């Protein structure tokens, strides 16, 4: 790595004692000796293992659940169904008044994706829990499912989630989050070229080497200690408190040493049910996702579809950009309405465009609910935007890097969501990339600065 201190030296104070110093990481000695304690490195006498019975169907009504055989299985201590969860509603963003109460902790009457949690089995050993889980009988009436976002948005599509009443999240702005800036149709009308293209991704897993999980210990003072690898301690505590209808003061969360997160451990899925199990059994409980669960059950990065329509001039100026984004939330919201909204704020990318129209939709389908991941709401949009930039440059016969200089945002430029640009540095990054990659651009671009608009 090379630190190029010559850029922005005038606005930066260097020569600090500790900041900017490559100090060794204080956690590394624990890592290399195997002494770092992750949540699962704690073992407690009498600890029970929780295994989840999951839906084998993408969409089905639950006619009945029969746990009688499973309960008799040797080693089984407790079996939990929806009726055992005090407030059986998943409440992830309710504390900040975002996100609907559209998901249960354990399925109640219906399942909406293949893998949805239905029954929790607690047993003395993992093996006993697995064996008993195989004996839980759930009678399903299979319902039509929808997997394609376009199909889901059509009239008459199977309704994924009754809470919403339609297969998209309803924002205060309507069926999508909107950004309107300038007059996009006028921009198109005056453009030399129009290019409309569609981009698509599929779900992506965080795939941390340590799977999601927690270990819960009932303490002598009527409190519960939850050792967890959540990315958000109080998020988890407060949500667990609501679901369990238990004062937050009864809950003690210990974490902060996590085997990789990447956004995959913010969903508060494992902790509430494990605490409930510890409460009802009076025993320590561990609930750790198997690798298969981590890969297919834990929320992935949403699949997205992005449609970009641009109006561009022969001289390289983009004069209008219309973006329609679709985020595939899966069967439940989790963080996806936020991600789609964050996408609306991110478009049209780091470029100054006078006429912008953004619609971002959060769409429900019968698949594993998606949620946050590294680059949430932005990563796939950046893929679409930057491939589109390449296509636009080639369309008008311009060098793709020079084309970006022409449109790059700079300090003071008004963004589409009506914030003035501050602290821009796109131009300098591109200048340095031009040098490092031996990708020459015209001298006038190398003379530009994010600070101001010179000739």
């Amino acid at each position, binding site marked *: *790595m090379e*630190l*190029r201190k010559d*850029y922005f030296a005038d606005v*930066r104070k260097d020569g600090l*004692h500790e*900041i*900017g*110093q490559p*100090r060794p990481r*204080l*956690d590394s000695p624990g890592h290399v000796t195997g002494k770092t304690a992750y949540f699962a490195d704690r073992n407690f006498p009498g600890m029970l293992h929780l295994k989840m019975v999951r839906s084998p169907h*993408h969409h089905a009504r639950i006619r009945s659940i029969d746990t009688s055989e499973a309960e008799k299985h040797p080693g089984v201590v407790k079996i939990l169904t929806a009726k055992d969860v005090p407030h059986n509603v998943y409440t992830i963003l309710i504390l900040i008044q975002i996100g609907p109460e559209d998901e249960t902790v354990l399925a109640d009457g219906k399942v909406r994706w293949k893998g949805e949690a239905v029954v929790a089995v607690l047993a003395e050993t993992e093996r006993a829990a697995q064996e008993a889980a195989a004996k839980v009988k759930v009678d399903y009436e299979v319902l039509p499912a929808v997997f394609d*976002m376009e199909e889901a948005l059509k009239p008459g599509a199977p309704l994924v989630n009754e809470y919403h009443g339609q297969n998209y999240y309803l924002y205060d*702005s309507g069926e999508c989050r*909107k950004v309107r800036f300038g007059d996009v149709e006028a921009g198109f009308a005056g453009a030399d070229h129009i290019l409309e293209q569609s*981009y698509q991704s*599929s*779900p*992506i897993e965080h*795939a941390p080497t340590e799977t999601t999980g927690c270990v819960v210990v009932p303490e002598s003072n009527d409190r519960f200690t939850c050792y967890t690898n959540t990315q958000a*301690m*109080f998020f988890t505590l407060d949500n667990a408190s609501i679901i369990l209808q238990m004062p937050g003061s009864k809950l*003690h969360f*210990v974490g*902060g040493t996590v085997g*990789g*997160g990447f956004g995959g*451990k913010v969903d508060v899925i494992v902790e509430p049910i494990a605490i409930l199990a510890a409460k009802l059994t009076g025993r320590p409980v561990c609930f750790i996702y198997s*690798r*298969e669960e981590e890969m*297919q059950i834990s929320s992935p990065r949403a699949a997205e579809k992005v449609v970009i329509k641009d109006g561009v001039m022969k001289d390289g100026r983009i004069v209008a950009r219309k973006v329609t984004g679709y985020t595939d939330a899966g069967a439940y919201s989790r963080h996806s309405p*936020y991600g789609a909204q964050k996408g*609306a*704020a991110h478009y049209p990318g780091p470029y100054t465009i006078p006429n912008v129209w953004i619609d971002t939709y959060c769409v429900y*389908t*019968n698949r594993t609910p998606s949620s946050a991941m*590294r*680059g*949430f709401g*932005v990563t796939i949009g*950046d893929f*679409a*935007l930057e*491939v589109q930039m*390449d*296509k636009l440059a080639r369309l008008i016969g311009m060098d*793709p*890097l020079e084309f*970006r200089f022409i449109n*790059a945002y700079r300090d003071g430029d008004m963004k589409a969501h*009506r914030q003035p640009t501050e602290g*821009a540095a796109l131009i300098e*990054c*591109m200048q*340095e*990339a031009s040098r*490092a*990659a031996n*990708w020459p651009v015209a001298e006038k671009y190398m003379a530009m600065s994010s600070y101001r608009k010179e000739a």
Partner: protein
Amino acid sequence: MAIRRGRGVAAINYPTGMNLGGDPTQALVHSTPTGNFMVTLSSVDLGQGMKQIMAQICAETIGVPTDRVVIDTADTDTGPHCMGTFASRGTHRAGNAVIQAAKEARQVMLEVAAEELEVNASDLETDGQGNIQVKGAPQKSISIFDVALSAHFKRGRSISGRGMFLIPRSYPEKETGAMKPSTCYAHACTVAEVEVDDETGEVTVLAVKNVFEIGRALNPKMVEQQLVGGSWMGISHALYETTEPYYPNRDHGGTDFNQYLMPGPGDLAKTEIIVLERPSADGPFGAKGPGEMCANPQIPAVANAVFDAVGVRVDTLPITPERILRALKAQAAG
């Protein structure tokens, strides 16, 4: 058979924080009787090194070496609230909270030192080595060890501080979408070079040259860790990863690390990292969040390089050999 080369570029920016939800983090700092400093938080270290960075931020602010700082985090019985580690907010939000708390503690520390040295607190400075000295007269000094002892046992002062950093929630305007979604923006530009086998669609990423602007490299080696690992993940996203390889068909989802594809140690691109620092107005020592954006520019850069190599566009992620081969065959068929 032909192996064809191409290169592509992409430039991006990335927002720090999640203003659309309201975004607070707190920190507490206190001194032990012998002048070590405890930082109490509830922020989570996912492996990115948040604990180490908070230690360096606290040390710089108070004016002690980093090894005099202990981070106690992610225990809800002791640590004050933090929203969590996501949205590139950890360093930015918790860092600001730690600075505020450390400044308050430093002020008490200087006041006690001033009493011991019989000077004005405003005339004192730290030497970064564990001592407090009079500005312009460094021979007149006292160790922080002695200051802490005095505070505890002689002067009855608590060398401590409280930090709270809140970005109030921004509500998007319904019709126009006017909003303040984040605080500062990091930037990047990546140039990728690839080879594409035009008979199999296989892509080899030969090299990526990444330029990142991250505000301030608080610990350059740790920044390098993030950026190198992020660049790998970006390439991985571009060419390999998905839980649903036949999306929107739900079948054949991978359930292990054999089936969930990521580049192995034999697939690594030659990775060059260049870092620029334009300090942000509101970041701790100007820092922005580099952890997320560093995995983004490689994806379109690789996509554009594939087009440059073989003249077909694959606008669906991941850009698998199958998708390239299908596009090549469609192209050949006219």
